[in-house]
Every structure is written in C-alpha cells, then in structure tokens.
C-alpha cells in the first residue's frame, strides 16, 4: 500500500506540474550558480568560476567605432535615449536553495518535479504505445491464427532477433531528435513482450466456452475480440504497462545521457543525471542525488506495485 501511495503521489505531482500548479517556473534562475542545498551548513566556502576571467578581463582598449559603416547609425541618439529609460531589473539571487541549484542557479527541487513530469510522461506514453501495439498485434494474431498469426509471428521474430539496445540505437541513428521521437522509439521497439503474452491469452480464450457462446448469439469478430476477450486480459496488460513504464523511464535516462534525449527547453531526470556527471567531480552532488533518488523511489514503488498487482490478479505467479 505504501507503494501505491508513493505512485499516487508522483502521479499527482506530475499532473499538478503539467497543469502548472507547481514548478511551472522551474527554468527561472532563483539562486546563484550551484547554490548549495539549504540544509548544508551555510559556511560552505564558495568558489565560483576558476577566477580566470578576472585575469582575462583586463581593461581593454577603446571600443571600436563603427558609426561610419553602421546602418543603424542615423538613429543612434534615439537608441541611446530609449536605452537609458529601460531600467534593468535588480535581481538578488539567493545563496542557498531547498535542494540546491544547478549551474544556472535554477532550483533543483523544481527541476526534479518538472523532470518527473517529463520522465513519467515519456515512460507512460511510450508504455501505453507499446502495450497498445502489443495488445492489438497479439489479439489479432492470437484470435485469427493461421496466416495472420504467421505474419505477426514473423514480425515478432524479426524484432526480437535484434538485441533490444541495438534496435533502439538503430532507430535513434536515423530518426530526428525530440520528445516524440523518444516515445516513438521506445514504443516501436518495446511491444514484443506484450505481444507474446497477449497472443497466448487470446489463443487460450478464443477456444473458451464463453467466446463460443458469444459467437452463437451472433457477436461479431470485433465484438468478441474487444468486448469479450479483452476485459479478461486486462490484468496482463496492466502488469505489462507498469513494467514497461519502469523500463522506459530507465531507458529515457540512458538515451538522454547519449544525447538522444528530450529537447533543451525541457528537463527530465535523464538530462539532470547527464548534467550531474560532471557536477559530481566538482563536488556538486545535489542534482545527482535529487534526480537519482526521486527516480529510484518512483521506480521502486511502481515495481512493488506491479508485484502486488501480479500476485492479486494472477494467482498462478508469484
């Protein structure tokens, strides 16, 4: 039950983040660069930058004058006057943040929340896609059998004969970059396990009496496939879904590390961990811990939940 609470919490977090209740301003720079977490003694000494820029910033020579070639020169006076009126907003970054700051001084806590939104979305949507593909393929193959089955079996064999990671990379090598691409890659390569199970279920159920009975009262193929058999395979799909969510959340991290991840304007646990690699060496461990821990907590919870679900729904397995 604890795991259910944790999962519910993360989903709630994700939804509220998606709806903009929390962390909508995750990209705001609220602290200094690498602001340490608030719970560390404030006495932590600050060494920002290598101090090299001070060495480089010698008072340079007179600025070069380009007014004789500048197309903007006729309006220099106006420009100067307007610029004088624009007041620069004074901004006081805080020295510490609840869970520390990243290199831009963004709040790691907010980043983690926003990151969980993206990561969970990627995991969930990709898993839905994979399960949907697997279910449709499996249902069709298992229900119809014969040629149709042969064809899907062939497709299954083709996909499973290529090692999974290689399949992902092969897709990644040729597709463009972006959030939709990751979801697509994971979904298109991840359906095989679901297909296998669903096909077995359909083969099993297609011969059962209740299906024959439905046929006898004139239920169409589609009705039998989806209205009668599908609900009986719900537990398989549910378990598969949660397993794939976990798998895909982890895959997103790896893909992001390899630069095949989410775009720059977004943050995910994967991009946070990719940043964290070099941060660890300079002693800024908080982003690693924040992203790593939240991911671990969610994945543990989902895994335990999956186990529980499997025990509850499918008594044969343990």
């Amino acid at each position, binding site marked *: 039950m604890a795991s259910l609470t944790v999962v519910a919490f993360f989903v709630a977090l994700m939804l509220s983040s998606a709806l903009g209740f929390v962390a909508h301003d995750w990209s705001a720079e609220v602290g200094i660069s690498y602001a340490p977490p608030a719970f560390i003694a404030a006495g932590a000494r600050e060494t920002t*930058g*290598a101090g090299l820029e001070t060495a480089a910033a010698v008072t*340079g020579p007179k600025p*070069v004058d380009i007014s004789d070639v500048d*197309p903007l020169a006729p309006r220099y006076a106006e420009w100067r006057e*307007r610029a004088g009126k624009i007041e620069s907003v004074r901004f006081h970054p805080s020295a510490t943040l609840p869970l520390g700051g990243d*290199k*831009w001084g963004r709040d790691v806590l907010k980043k983690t929340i926003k990151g969980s939104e993206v990561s969970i979305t990627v995991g969930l949507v990709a898993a839905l896609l994979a399960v949907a593909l697997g279910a449709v393929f499996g249902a069709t193959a298992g229900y119809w059998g014969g040629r149709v089955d042969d064809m899907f079996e062939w497709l299954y064999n083709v996909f499973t004969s290529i090692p999974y990671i290689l399949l992902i990379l092969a897709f990644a090598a040729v597709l463009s970059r*972006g959030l939709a691409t990751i979801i697509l890659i994971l979904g298109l390569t991840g359906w095989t396990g679901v297909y296998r199970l669903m096909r077995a279920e359909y083969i099993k159920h297609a011969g059962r009496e209740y299906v024959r009975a439905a046929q006898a009262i004139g239920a169409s193929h589609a009705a039998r496939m989806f209205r009668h058999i599908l609900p009986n395979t719900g537990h398989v799909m549910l378990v598969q879904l949660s397993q794939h969510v976990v798998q895909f959340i982890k895959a997103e991290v790896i893909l992001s590390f390899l*630069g095949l991840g989410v775009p720059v304007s977004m943050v995910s646990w994967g991009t946070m961990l990719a940043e964290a690699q070099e941060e660890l060496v300079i002693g800024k461990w908080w982003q690693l811990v924040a992203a790593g821990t939240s991911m671990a907590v969610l994945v543990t919870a989902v895994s335990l939940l999956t186990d529980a679900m499997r025990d509850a729904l499918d008594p044969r397995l343990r």
Partner: protein
Amino acid sequence: MSILPRINLIAGYGGRNSKPPAGIGLLSYLRALLKSKTPRLAIIRPMPSTRLRVRAAALLACMVAAVAGVAAAAGPAQGLKVVRFAFRAVETGFDPQRVDDLYSSAVNGEIFESLLQFDYLARPVRLMPQVAERVPEPEEGGLVYTFHLKQGVYFADDPAFRGRRRELVAGDAVYALKRLRDPRNRAPYAWLVENRIVGLDEAHDAAVQSGAFDYDAPVAGLQVLDRYTLRIRLKRPDFNFLYIFTMPQTAPVAREVIEAYAADTMAHPVGTGPFRLVQWVRRSKIVLERNPVYRGDVLETAYADPKDPIDQRVIRELTGKRLPQLDRVELYPIEEEQPRFLAFMNGEHDLLQETPAAYINQVLPGGHLAPTLARAGVGFQREVAPSITYDLFQMENPVVGGYTPSQVALRRAMVLGHDRGAEIAIVRRGVDVPAQSPVPPGVVGYDAGFNSGAEQDFDPARAQALLDLYGFVDRDGDGFRERPDGSLLVIDYMHSTGGQTARALAELWEKSMRRIGIRLVPRAVQFSDQIRDRKAGKFMLASAAWAADYPDAQNFLQLLYGPYSGDSNDSRFRLPAYDRLYEQALAMPDSPERNALYREMCRLMLAYAPWRLGIDRVFVNLYRPWVLGYKKHPMYHISLRFLDVDLALQQAAAGP
C-alpha cells in the same frame, strides 16, 4: 586543425576508396582465425559436455588472442623514455592526404615531414623550413614559389622499398599534392590546392571523367626542376600560399608505399619524420617509436623570447640534446571527459592537453594550481588558441537575414541580448575569453586593439531599446515580441546533439532571448543533418566554431566572403563592400596596409552582424614534472620531437 575538436569528434571524417579493394570478408577472417587453432566451429553438434566446454573455451581464447593482437609487449623496458597521454577524440588514420581531423594530423605531423614548419618557440608563429632548405620567397608577385629540398632525407625503412634506402625527392612532394586532388582519395583538405595551382584542377577533372587519376601526366604548375627542386605556379597571386606547406596534408609521401598498401594506406604511414607508427589499435591506442633512420634535429633558439619563462625552461631543458629524445609515445583516444581527466590525475598519463572545462575548478581553483597538483610538481600552461566559436545567422532567411536597418537591428539586438558573460562564467567555467573580432589571437592580422565589447557584450537595455525602436514590440501581450508587420517572431536555433556544452549554450540562448522578449526554440540535430541544413541554408541561427587551418586572418575572414556562400560561408553573408576588401587583401603580402583592410572587414561584420561572436578558446594544458621541453604551439596539437623525459624524476614519483 580543422573545425574544433568537438565537431571532429562527431565527424571523424575520412576517406573511403571508391571500391572496397579485394575485401577480406568476415568469412575469410573467421577462417583464418579458426584454421590454426581449432578444428571446426562445430559446437552445434551434441558432444560430451566437457569437450564442448573445452572447445568453447579454446575458441574464445583464440578469438581473444587474435583480437588482442600478436604484439603482447608487456610494458616498456626500463630506461626507455616514454610519454603517455590522451586525445580527446578518436583518430581517423595516418594517410596524411586523406584526413583532416586534429588528432590524426597531429600524429601524421610526427611521422611525416612537410616542406615547411613553424618554429617551436617563436610567437607570433614563424615559418621555418623542414625538409625544404629554406622558406621560399614569393616570385613574380606571389605567383611562383620554388622549393629546394634538403639532400639526404630518407624515408623510414619499409618492405615496400625492397631493402633499399629511399631518399625523399621533389617528385614525392608533387605526388602528395596530386593525391590531394585525386577524386578517389576524397581528400577533405583538397580545397588547400583547389583552384590554386596551374593545371591541377584540369588533372582532377580528367580523373573524374576517366575514373583514375593519371599521376604520370605532368601538371604545368608542378614542375620538378631537378631531383631536389620543385617549382609551383599559381593561377593567382597568393601570399598565404606557403602556410599550406606546414600542414601534414601536403607532406611528401612515397608512391611505392601508397601503392603497396593501397588497400589500407591509413594503417601504413611511412615518412621521414622523427617517429614511426609501431602499433595501432583503432580508436583505442596509438604507439609511436623513435624512427631510427631519422636524421636528427636540435632546438632552434634564435626566435625565442629570452624573457619568457617557458622559453627559458625549454631552452634549459633541451639545449645540447639531439632530438627526438623520446623512445616511445603512447596515445589513447578517450572521448569521455571524466576518464581522460582522471587518467592524468591518477598519474597514468604524463600530459593533459585541453583540460576539460568541467574540472577546471579542481585544477586551477581561483586561477592558481591546486595544492595537490603543485605538490606533485605538475606544470601548467594556459593557451589562447587560434580558434573561435560563433553563432551564425542565415542571411537569406526572411526573418533573421537581410541588410535593411530593421533587419540589421533584430540581429544586433539578439547579439546584445545574449548573455555572453554567463556563457563564459557558467558554460565555459570562466576559462575562455570573449572574442573581440572574427580573427582570434595568434594569427597574422590579429588586432589586439580591436575592442568590440560595445556591440557584442551583454546589454539587455540597449537590446530592448533597439527592438522597440524598429517596431519589434509585443502587440498581443503574450510576453513575446512580434515582427514590425505584426507577424509572429520565432527564432529557430540549430545546435548539435550530445554534449552538455551544446545543450547549455542552447539553454542560454533561450533564456537570454526570453529576457528581451524574443521567442527562441532550440533544435537539436544530428551532426550529418546539421551539416546538410547549414550547407543548404535551412536554418535561422546555428552554432559554429572555427580553428585556424593556417595562422592568417584570411582563414577566418573567408567565412564571410560572398562568393563562398553555401560553401565555407554558411551564413551566406554577401556585402559588396566586404567582398571588395577581401579581394584587395588577398593580393597583398602581410603588411600594415593589409591589416587595415582586415580591420575594416571586422568592422563591417560588427555593423551587419551576420555572426554573434562567442569566445576565443583558452586551453589549460598540464604536464608532469618529468616532462621536459613542453611548450604548446598554437598550430600544432603536440610537438613530440621537442619533448624529453627526466627518467630519475619519473621513477622517484613512481616509487612511493
């Protein structure tokens, strides 16, 4: 040597023969592999399990052995001078004419000798002869150059020479230049000689027609006057021509060797230089050893700066020594920053060039060498490299291109609105310095007095004022400005995938533009797509970098020359005034007058802003105390022939 390592790292350009010559397929490899050691690959047949296990083990062992290579040299012998360090990107290969990446070229520069070279100590760089007797003077107003080669320069011994000593002759230099234009070689540096030498382009066109380059046919512009004399005639006067003869791409090669190893010239470099390749595990290890037939060299000190502490040290450490001193050099391409850095920190490597910026705080906290490193006697050199980064606008794009005041204003405002201070402090970790002009320090024509801060440094107030002034205002109240005609203003910023730096730069652009009310959407694209889109002009704003091929401002300013649009001028900047200045400068030798023209061109660039200038690269190079003679040269990645090892110091450090 070419674009920055970051880009080469992804590109790893290289040639490939048109037809895979007599390919040794997987099958024959397997066969060769299995023939001697195991009877047959017959594990499918059921057999007593113990035998199966033995066979499988034997098969595995034999594969591993075959893979590991025969040379199982268990570490260098005592008393040998060995230097180990890492390349930050993988090499391509060691056919000098067929590579353009920095690291392969660095190795080629030690194996082969070009006609000319740069002096080791002189700053600014200075041309010196290498296998040429002296640096040729331009004749006929920069149209003709005559090289006299040194006599008694011999190639390293190789079976291709059938046991005879092979002297380097003028014909070898001609052969190398022809190879650059042989379409089969797909030489990435073909443009060095393209449209320059009389008759060579015609030879290339004939080769495209016939399918094979005729090396025996004479080329009018490449005259061999006698065994040691070579005269090159150009189509147009060119006072920067000699620089290409410092590059390994033009280094003479022996035709017998190239033809003998035609299938894999990348793996069989035979040169006249101080080192030879003894082992190459692709992308993992390159081992060089002293070339026993190398004639030897000594340190030239005439152009050193007697007040410079590095020069003093180098002179002290190398005077009276016959070069090279190193017996063996082991190079490891390591693309990940952390292992490359840690390998030096752990003492596995003797040298760390281009310390990853991420770790600069551990190396130079507050600008001073870290105490642990200082105690270990580690030395460091800070180098402003002749390379710049920039962002380019596509000048033909209807949104960001154009030359009218309002179009110029948008670009200028974006440049002013970009927080370059944050780029340097955060993304570059305070290591690099802001670029003041398209011409970086260290190249001829660099103007230290050129301060473009007023047009390039972060000034959001002026940026916003400029946008307001020219009608880029927010009309619909969404917080983002529209174009003067009321249509949407969305800037597309193209950057490369992978790498935290590219990502952070994209973040910075997005943040900076949001602050001044411009919507900018970063778009990560794979390297190949990025090149394609850049060449085709399918972008608005893109990140770019350029490192000097040769140390003259022209190498950078040509990137904005109108007629090169879509070629090397990716921003497609076409300004008649600029092009006129460029053509004028081309026909002039290095002089204050030419520098004045360069300055004018830089001013035009600032005014029309086809680029936003980023940074001049600064590298921090570290070396262990036993590495003697080290001085980073701006045009060479490494100069192994000028290194030495203090064996006593090295052993003392290894002891406890």
